[in-house]
Every structure is written in structure tokens, then in C-alpha cells.
């Protein structure tokens, strides 16, 4: 027991990064540490996925980089902590990560009982089904008697139970702890159906032996708003993460992005001026520099650029903007104005 305490004390000191005050001011801690700790998935193409050299890419990853850009003016000052579905909330609650950006569905119970705040929605998703083409299934309502593979401990698992129950369909659920195992089991023919968020279906389909033998059914059986999460009780940090996302959406709406930043930053448009901080003191109100949003757009890009680069039609995932388009184009992405 003594050894335990000793090693604990040593460990706390030795791991350096260790001691962070999870209490009041996350921003101060982050500034003191010199980087943002960001909880991401253990590998989901398009959202947060490491390449063989350990570089992370994806929408969720870019959100974290944007936060780092806003705080430090440097989008590389972020450390990614891969988390399983089980660990993610504990990791955030205990202060192991400063922001959880891990395709996490915003639900009422998570928002109210876990001591967490959802800071926005960076991807509007919905749960779908994928089946083998040769089954000839056209609709989810034909799935009675099917075996369904999914991840355990997710909203998906509950939704699929609700859906089959509501439609009086029989089914067998096969729930795995790790997403990779779900894919492997579905690929091996253990299940007829693979269900998860539709974006996930497109992402995981790439890992199947013959991706073209599988089809995603049209039904969407749930609302899955995915977004970054922060701890409750730190409004400043909550605002920073929230407005990081809004800044990227606003930037797209204003037509300013990473590609044309140099040209557009000279614009006379007052909205752009407020965004990039040449007018007003909006950064200061967040506790950041006034060029906070300029750094986001310059270093990471606007929402549309991020979407296109990670999951858009020209990537392997080939997901259409759809509900994730700007409100002005019929989508759901809408950001309050900076003023």
C-alpha cells in the first residue's frame, strides 16, 4: 500500500503533463501546459483517424486544431488522446482531456446527468443500416429476423432496439466493444446488417473486403447530432469551443477560407472584419487574442473546406453535404453572427 501511494505520488510528478487543475479556468491550464488535450476516437476515417506516422486527420481532429489555433495561434499545439466509447466521459470529467471531440451524440441525458456540456454540432448525423447487396433488401422494414452488428454502449444500440420494437420486427443484436471488431464480424458474415451513424457506415464500408458488395439503406432511424463536449462549470472554455465551431461556419458563409485568406482578409466587409479581428474586441471577450478566428480560418480553414477535405465527395467516404450544408443552402449549419 505504501508503495502504491509512493508510485502514485511519483507518477503524478513524473508524468509532468499530469497535474492539471480541472477546476475553474481550463483556458489558464491550457495556456500553462502549452497545448490543448483533445479526446478523439481510436480510428474512424473522416472524423479522427491516425495515419501510419501518427498524424491525425478528420473533422473532429480539425475542430481541436481550430481550438488550438484560436488559443495559441498555432494549430499544432494540440495533443490527441484516443479514447474508447467507455472511457470518453470519464476522461473529460477527470480532466484528462480539455475537449472531447469524438463523434459523440448530443442527448438530453448526457447533457444533464454526466456533468458535461455539448458545445455545438459539427456534424448532423443519423443512424442507418448497411446490408449486403445480394440480400436484395430495399428497406429497413424488410429486416425482420436479421442479425444486427453494432457497437456496444452507444446510442446506436438503444436506437436499433427501439426501431425494431416499434416496427414489431424480430432481430438479433450482436454488440462489440470495438468498432474494428464490428466491421470484421460483419465482413465475416456473422451479421446481415451493420448499423451505426450513417457517416460511420460510409467510413467503415471502406474497410470491408469488397466495399461495392454492400449498400447503405435509405432509412435514417434517429437524430445523431455529433459535436464537441466540454466540462460543465467553465463558461469561458465552453464559449471558446462553441465559438470556434461558429467561427468556421460563419467563415464559410462569408466566403472566407484557408485558400483565399490572403485575398479576403483585406476585404471591406464589416462582417469579415469582425471575424478576423480587424474590427471589434471579440477575441478579448473570450479571453483570447482578437485574431482568434483569423487564426482558425488561416490555419485550419472554414467549415466547408474541412468537410470537403475529410468526408466530402472527393474523398473516399464521398458523403454529400446534405443536412450539413449551410442554412442558406438548405442545410442545418447555422451560426449566430459575430457582433
Amino acid at each position, binding site marked *: *500500500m505504501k*508503495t*502504491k501511494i509512493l*508510485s*502514485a*505520488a*511519483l*507518477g*503524478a*510528478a*513524473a*508524468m*509532468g*503533463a*499530469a*497535474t*492539471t*487543475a*480541472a*477546476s475553474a479556468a481550463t483556458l489558464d491550464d491550457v495556456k500553462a501546459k502549452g497545448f490543448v488535450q483533445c479526446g478523439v476516437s*481510436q*480510428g474512424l*476515417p473522416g472524423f479522427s483517424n*491516425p495515419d*501510419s*506516422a*501518427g498524424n491525425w486527420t478528420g473533422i473532429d481532429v480539425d475542430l481541436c486544431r481550430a481550438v488550438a489555433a484560436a488559443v495559441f495561434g498555432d494549430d499544432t499545439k494540440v*495533443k*490527441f*488522446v*484516443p*479514447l*474508447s466509447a*467507455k*472511457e470518453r466521459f*470519464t*476522461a473529460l*470529467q*477527470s*480532466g*484528462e482531456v480539455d475537449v472531447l471531440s469524438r463523434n459523440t451524440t448530443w442527448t438530453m441525458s448526457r447533457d444533464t446527468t454526466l456533468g458535461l456540456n455539448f458545445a455545438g454540432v459539427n456534424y448532423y448525423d443519423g443512424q442507418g443500416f448497411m446490408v449486403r447487396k445480394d440480400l436484395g433488401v430495399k428497406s429497413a422494414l424488410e429486416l425482420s429476423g436479421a442479425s444486427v452488428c453494432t457497437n456496444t454502449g452507444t446510442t446506436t444500440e438503444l436506437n436499433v432496439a427501439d426501431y425494431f420494437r416499434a416496427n414489431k420486427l424480430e432481430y438479433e443484436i450482436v454488440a462489440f*466493444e*470495438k468498432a*474494428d*471488431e464490428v*466491421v*470484421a464480424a460483419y*465482413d465475416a458474415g456473422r451479421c446481415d446488417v451493420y448499423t451505426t451513424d450513417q457517416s460511420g457506415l460510409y467510413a467503415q464500408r*471502406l*474497410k*470491408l*473486403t469488397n*466495399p461495392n458488395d454492400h449498400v447503405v439503406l435509405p432509412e435514417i432511424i434517429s437524430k445523431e447530432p455529433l459535436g464537441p463536449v466540454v466540462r460543465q462549470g467553465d463558461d469561458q472554455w465552453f464559449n471558446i469551443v462553441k465559438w470556434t465551431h461558429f467561427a468556421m461556419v460563419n467563415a464559410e458563409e462569408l466566403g472566407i477560407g484557408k485558400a483565399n485568406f490572403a485575398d479576403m482578409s483585406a476585404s471591406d466587409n464589416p462582417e469579415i472584419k469582425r471575424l478576423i479581428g480587424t474590427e471589434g474586441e471579440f477575441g478579448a471577450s473570450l479571453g483570447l487574442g482578437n485574431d482568434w478566428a483569423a487564426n482558425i480560418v488561416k490555419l485550419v480553414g472554414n467549415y466547408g473546406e474541412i468537410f470537403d477535405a475529410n468526408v466530402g465527395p472527393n474523398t*473516399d467516404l464521398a458523403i454529400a453535404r446534405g443536412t450539413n450544408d449551410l442554412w442558406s443552402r438548405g442545410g442545418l449549419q447555422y451560426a449566430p453572427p459575430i457582433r
Partner: protein
Amino acid sequence: MSDTDSQTALYRAETGALEIAFVREQMTKPMPAPASEVGVVGWMRKNLFDGWFNTLLTLFALWILYLILPGILNFNFFNAVWSGTDRLACSDVNQGGELYEGWKGACWPYIGAYFKQFIFGRYPDAELWRPILVLIMFFAGLIPMLIPSAPFKRENIIYMLGIFPVVAFILLTGGNLNYNGFLLPNAIMADSALKFWVDYVLLTAVICGVVHFIVRGMDGDSRRPIMLTIFAMALLGIVIFLSSIDFGLRFVETPQWGGFLMTLVIAVTGIAASLPLGIALALGRRSQMPVVKLLSVIFIEFWRGVPLITVLFMSSVMLPLFLPEGVTFDKLLRALIGVALFSAAYMAEVVRGGLQAIPKGQYEGAQALGLAFWQMMNLVVLPQALKLVIPGIVNTFIGLFKDTTLVVFIGILDPIGRASAIRATSDWQGIYWELFIFIGAVFWIFCFSMSRYSMHLERRLKTDHR
């Protein structure tokens, strides 16, 4: 028979019989045993076809081998693809490759492509020399330790237990850690490296005080224990100081570690940490003091009664809640704590076995010489007991080594974790067996040779005792 015959012949010759009888002057060379009894055939008769039951058994066994072996050999060697750069190298004509239809075999270039990741995980390329150096240092220290006749055992142990861990820690993480104060309130002194050392000295003083109080209460003379404490704290201080020096090494955070490097880090740290704890628990369990004994028994039986996987779950989702607000541990460190506590319980039982094997006379003799408890343990009992339990320790280590694979459940990327992550990349879809065969083979080689070594030791120790 031939003896009697030649005697008969001799007798006839003496009685003057005319017939010339052959008189053998020397023994004939023994006839070789019948072909059915020696050589391959004889050996087979004796060992394989001895009676109808054995024959049936042999045929059955051979049939089983016939079912299993060709498939395994074909897949792994004869049909395997050994070179190539991508998935296409292992595709048959239907899949757009060059191999014949229905081809089934291992795709080894795949392992080659990810070999580095299996060994080191996602450790950055530019820094790879660091884990390689650590591995070389580890084996350079370990091998002479395992050879009983190698000289400089004492220096070797100091190297393995003292120098190597520090150097390995600095090399792997990059060192240059920041230490802030931990004792005094911030109002007195702001957090800084200087405050850490002020706090450290204060802590040393407090510990010395406690030691003084306890030892005074028990033995009377507290000078030696206090010197020892100061010495230990000074050593620890040097280690901490070393780890805070900026050697110009890049900091590599633990999520980037992985592969067999991770397996070794967890297994070696786990066993090293569990040994002292296990000895303490074993002594506690045999203690005369009821509270100490009870606590040791509860501790040991608790950890031995639960599966490692729940311990790891606990370390990953429960432990953070038990820590004071604002204190967080690295995930790997939390797992290490869990693994160390878990294996300490097993180690305690191994050591207890050794303590029980020491004849009571040894204890009584030591007591008769007037040795105090710790002197008796240090000088008489433990040296004998630990020697006896070395094979048990090696076996515990083998178990722990295999069990490290479970860390994959808490998202630490050991070889199996790397495998599933790698499998999830789109350029090598559908590859599965090769990963498991490769990982299994590496584990097998390690564990098999360790178990051989432990058996060798066991035999050696046995002869030593007779």
C-alpha cells in the same frame, strides 16, 4: 548354447573321436539384432506399433497430423506471397491480381510493411533510435543476468535496477519534465521548479521525522534508518533531477508508443514493481500481527479473485474518480498501477511458497543468533527463499507477458491493438490471419524460451540442493 556346443566338441576330441570337430577359440561376434528390433524399424515397432491399440493410436494421430499440417504449411510457406508492395500482390485473378483463382495463402509483405508499427507502434520515425537503444540496453543487461556463470552479477543488478530504468524512461518519454511544487500552499510560494525542490526537501524532512518516530518507538536507534531514508530520497532526487534535464530529446507522449515495445514496457515495469510489493505482502501474510495479516490476505485474495480485465477497466474509468480533483494520470501509468497491484498479489503467493519451503530451523537459528526481524529476513530467509522462487517468478512473468495483451481493451495499442488498427486501413483490407500468426509466433518464441529457461533453472536449483 554355443558354449555348451563347444564344450561338447571339446569332449569328443579328448575322447579320441576321429571326427574333426570345430573348436572355437574365440567368442563369435554377437549377431546384430534382427532388423525388426533395431534401427528405424525396431524403434517404430517399439514406439509406434506396439500392439493393436498402439497401432490404432499411431494411425489416428498420423491421420490428425495429415489433416492439420499440410494446410498450415501450405498457407504459411508454400502458397505464401513473400514480396510485394500492396494488396494487389496478394490478389487472385478475380480480384485483379496475378495469382490463380482460389489461391489461399499468407500475405507476408503486409507484415513487412507494418513491421515497424508492430514493434514500436506510432513512435515517430525520427526518434526511432531511442526505443531501439532502449531495447539493446535492456537485452544487453538481461542476457548476462540470465547466464549464471557470467561475471559482475552485482554491477549487472545495479545496472538493471538502477541505471537502466532511468535511462529508458528518459529515452522513451524524452525527459525534460516540468515539476511544480506539491506541498506548500501557493500563497507561500508560487509553483515553479524551485518550489518543487523546496517541497522535496521538506518532504524528506517530514519522512525522516516519521521514520525517526517509528524507529524510536521500536528499536531505539534511528540514526541508521534515517541515513538510509536520506540516501534513498537523494537517489530519487537525482532520478527526478535527471528526468527534468532538457537533453534536447523531443517529448513523445505515451499514446504514440505501441507494439511489442508497449508489451515489454508493461510486463517489465509490472514485474519490477510487483516484486517488492509481493515480498512485502508475502511477509505480511505470514506475519504474527493479526491486522497486518488480515490486510495482506484481503489484498491478495481480492486481486487474485478478479479478472485482470476488470482491473484494467477500473484503472481506466474508476481510478480517475478516486484521485483528488485536478490530478490526472497518464493512461499508461494508470494501467501500469493496475497491472502492478494485480501481479503483486500473484507474486506474493509465489514468494510465500518460497518462504514456506525454508525449514523452520533457519528461522530459529537466525533468532537464536539474536537477529532482529528485518535482519533475519534480509540475511537469512529471503536470500534462500528468493532463490527458490526464481522459476515461479519467471512463470509469473510469462503469465503477465501474455496478459499484457488485455490492455487493448483500454485503448493502449499493444501488438493486437496495432493489428486491429492496421487492419482497419483500406489499402490492405481483408487481411487477418497473417497478423495473428505473426503476433502469436513472436509471443510464442518469447514465452517458450522463457519457460525453457525457467525449467533449466529449476533443474539447476534442484541439483544445488542435493
